[in-house]
């Protein structure tokens, strides 16, 4: 009797699993889609004019945001890759839909300009610094406040203490 009950239980459980499995898979898919959509929402600008991404549009009710998010969700569910979604949105709304300009052409100025400027600045500092450290010390020697070796020694010691 108990074996029969166990058998029925196992069959029932197996049946339940078969029945519920698609629902679980569907829920898992929906969650995965949501994660991808949320991620993509940070990459595209909202078209309502707020100047922010879809993820951070500040309007409580925003038709353009909800429409674009729905389009993205449809495309994700349809199995499109992020690159395909980007291409579709750019075709529809223009390049301005991208929250970061694509890395090509003039846009490279925005992407690499700051680093080029920093590099140029660093080289300038190193060159100027080297020149300043090599500069002969007539100003220092001629300065009325020039120190004697003993005074310099004393100062060095005090400075060491101070730095410590």
């Amino acid at each position, binding site marked *: 009797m108990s074996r029969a009950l166990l058998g029925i239980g196992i069959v029932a459980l197996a049946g339940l699993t078969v029945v519920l499995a698609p629902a679980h898979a569907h829920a898992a898919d929906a969650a995965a889609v949501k994660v991808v959509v949320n991620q993509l929402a940070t990459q595209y600008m909202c078209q309502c*004019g707020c100047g*922010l991404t879809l993820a*951070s549009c500040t309007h409580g009710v925003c038709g353009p945001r909800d429409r674009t998010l729905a389009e993205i969700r449809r495309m994700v569910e349809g199995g499109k890759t992020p690159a395909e979604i980007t291409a579709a949105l750019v075709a529809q709304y223009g390049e301005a839909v991208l929250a970061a300009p694509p890395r090509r052409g003039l846009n490279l100025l925005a992407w690499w300009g700051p680093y080029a400027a*920093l590099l140029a*600045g660093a080289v300038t500092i190193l060159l100027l610094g080297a020149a300043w450290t090599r500069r002969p010390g007539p100003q*220092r020697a001629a300065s009325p406040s020039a120190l004697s070796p003993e005074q310099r020694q004393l100062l060095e010691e005090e400075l060491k203490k101070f730095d410590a």
Partner: protein
Amino acid sequence: MSELGNLSIALAALVSAYGLVAALLGAGLRRADLQHSARNAVYAVFLLLSVASGILLYQALTRDFGNAYVASYSSRDLGFWYTVSVWWAGQAGSLLFWAWLLAGFGAVVVWRQAGYRELMPYIIATVMGVSVFFTLLLAVVSSPFARLAFAPPDGQGLNPLLQNPGMFFHPPTQYLGYVGFTIPFAFAIAAMATKRLDDEWIRATRRWTLASWFFLTLGVLFGMQWAYVELGWGGYWAWDPVENASLLPWLTGTAFLHSVMIQEKRDMLKVWNLVLIVLTFGLVIFGTFLTRSGVLSSVHSFALSSMGPLFFAFMAVILIVSFTLLALRLPWLKSAGDLDSLVSRESSFLFNNLILVGAAFSVFLGTIFPMISEAVRGVKISVGAPFFNQVNVPIGLALLLVMGLCPLLAWRKASLANLSRNFLFPGALGLLTAVGLIVAGLRQPVAVTAFALSAFVTATILLDFHRGAMVRRGHGEPYPLALGRLVLRNRRRYGGYIVHLGVILLFAGMAGSAFSSQQEAVLRPGQTVAINQYTLRYEGMSQYPTQSAMVTAATLTVFNGREPIAVMNPQRNIHRGHEEQPMTEVAIRSTMMEDLYVILAGIGDDGTANFKVIVNPLMMWMWIGGVLMSLGTVVAFWPERREALRARARYLVGAEA
């Protein structure tokens, strides 16, 4: 009343122009009477703009909706303090606020720093020149006293986004910071005009610079906090053009605060300091221009206007006049000092300046790049948060690194022994932190680097405090007293270090956002949503009217495991007069570890409610960092009588010579 307001503004514009001319003529012709008259003009402008401001406030508080500005930004149901904030809520009012602050600061300089006699006429001329621009805008382009043909029974009310306590903190502190930088700029112009190009102008404006930086810092932080609690998307910084505009002068102003120390100590970087203060002031005007012109779309787009070209022209005048003057004075700006070594604290300051100005350039370029793209390619593009985060994060980390290196390096020349002794403990701590975090499972390289660098910098600063206190203890002082006196006797240095500790906490909070998590759920009463260790149960919805809005509030019980720990009430409010724009009021539960942030994203007709729940780690540390930054600035700002006397004595000796 409005006529009197208009008259006050027109007179302020005229007197500003007179003050500018009288100051310049007084200096050129060496006429003491004209110089004296120019000084009085500053007081008069302040008085006239105080009258205009008083009238505007009176009209707002007495609900005089015949005044178009008052009708546009207030309503009968607006509370007292929000009605006061109408002063800076709109374009005309905020320009009046700007001009009034400027005249006030000018009056303080004329009154308190009258001893700088040779510089004063040019300081007045600069302040009055800026005042001419703003008062003319108020008189001709954007008057806060324009009248409507018929007074409506009620006003349109204040934009619901602005009805937040942040309205009393963010705009005033932002403007105090912006306007404050006019004074160091005016001293710099005066120093160039008079060829008094030693460090006196820097010493004379040190506290103005610090105060302006302090208020600008507060302005930026209050803005972040306001955005976090009000805008309802879970973040605090969206790289919006107007946010960027507030960051730009902060970055160059921070570079200036550091680089002036090199001029004071080593008589170097004279040209660079002048460039930095001109840039900082130029960026202040650029920030006001961006906020007020509406040239770039922004969350601050309630400030749309057509005065962009005028601001642009004014910016051009400032830069052309300043840099022409600078070019003419180059022969007088040769540095007397030398670098002893490239491995020294001086050179770390140079790199600190490079990174801060590089960051400013990066933010500036990103902000205006949509305009560049449209002008060059004819293609509209957007430059949003993903761009700024990618470009600026490495720059921010480099800044953090330099902040840690700086206190480790000795002035003039760091010896190998000095380096190895100072680097060992902080370097090891930074490395251990990185390894510990990786072992604990953290995989985001940026966050791991940020936390490791934060540990490194904290160690360098605390080591400096400890060593200083130990030296004093060697003279017989107990350790706590030694530590206290160390800070009090070297307020500038240790105040600066306290600011740095605040910056580290700020960075740690920002790095924490790499680990934020988010859940969205459509719930019926009784259903739950789980996120991390929290479970939120939706209990139901309630609706009630307030003085200015219809509030719809959800009630959620928050459980940590099985234990109920809080009840949260995110809201969705419809303000009267703004029915088309429902406002989300988020509910936030803050702890030292993380914020639980709940947004009521939507309400269904079928009794469901749509919630967005976010867990933001370490947010509290950002605000504590802000408090520390403010505290450190106050310590550094606190007057040291000896130093002030020394500066005055130097100035007088210089004047005699």
